[in-house]
């Protein structure tokens, strides 16, 4: 499996730095920008993986995307604890694909600019999925970006992992919708 980087354009957010640290207006603008960019991010990821994956919302396609991700994700040459910079954009794109897929499968779910808690919350001012009705915690949310980024860091570290993450993650989340 390989990545077709030739036509890939990374996602560039309007502001730099962690979303939780941005002023509210800038974080909101980042969220709106990110939401508008989703169709293009689908296109970018489709092109990137097209050699090995016909990307759509089926479990079979998501499973192949997972395999492609596992086999291709790269650490930074100079800092092996970090991903190669372009891969943070790929993490973003995978987040879009997985999140949109989950929302299309579960009509009660939606993307939300998360400001229900304070700055110490991992999801604060981020794009997360909310609307889960089968959990007792009303602030429960799915931070797909954090999950995919964590997965990527586990992979470059060589952590022992289950064979697949994306489909089980979507299934577990759907059961809570």
């Amino acid at each position: 499996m390989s990545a077709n980087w030739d036509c890939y354009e990374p996602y560039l957010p309007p502001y730099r730095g962690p979303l939780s640290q941005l002023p509210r207006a800038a974080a909101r603008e980042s969220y709106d920008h990110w939401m508008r960019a989703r169709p293009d991010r689908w296109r970018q990821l489709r092109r990137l993986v097209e050699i090995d994956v016909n990307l759509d919302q089926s479990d079979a396609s998501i499973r192949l995307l997972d395999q492609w991700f596992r086999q291709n994700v790269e650490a930074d040459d100079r800092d092996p604890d970090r991903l190669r910079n372009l891969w943070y954009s790929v993490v973003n794109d995978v987040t879009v694909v997985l999140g949109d897929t989950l929302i299309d499968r579960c009509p009660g779910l939606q993307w939300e600019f998360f400001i229900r808690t304070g700055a110490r919350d991992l999801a604060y001012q981020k794009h997360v999925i909310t609307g889960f009705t089968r959990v007792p915690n009303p602030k429960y949310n799915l931070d797909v970006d954090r999950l995919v980024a964590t997965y990527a860091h586990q992979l470059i570290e060589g952590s022992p992992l289950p064979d697949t993450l994306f489909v089980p993650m979507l299934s577990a989340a759907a059961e809570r919708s």
Partner: protein
Amino acid sequence: MCVGLQAGAFAVRTEQTLSESGGLTTDSAATATGLGLLGKSLNGIRSATSLTDDAARSAVPQVLKNKQAGDAAADSIASRYAGAQREVTLQAASGPRRLDVLTPQGLAIESKVGRVSYTSSVRQQIQRDVELMNDPTSGVRAVEWHFRTSAVTGLGGPTGPLRAALNVAGIGIR
């Protein structure tokens, strides 16, 4: 009070350092690099607090001393993991869980100073940690509890019942 003010001042500097981190493509990237800077700032906190003299210490209520010792222990743990986040809250399905340290690889660490018993609040922490470890939507791969001996009491580590509960839960003890 003196110690508290110093710690507060350095906490502000930590925030500033984080907000200055940039040049990255996405929020995940920014988080990873920004937290590397956070680690450096946290070292600064330790240095500052170590400069306080005995007189200042004696004026500080014990509860603040305990918090200071606990924070220093957690900062020390976080500094061993590149990009680790300190004192973050994760919304589990059953409720929030505040994590002393969370590494980019999904290792959550609870830092304890002194002798720790199996109380109801500790029991709830363990239950939530188990929930997070078993939840593919949590991003938490493993949980470890790190114990340190208290400089005040000279005691440290889990009591027998707590150690047993942690073992049953699959939580690592360091």
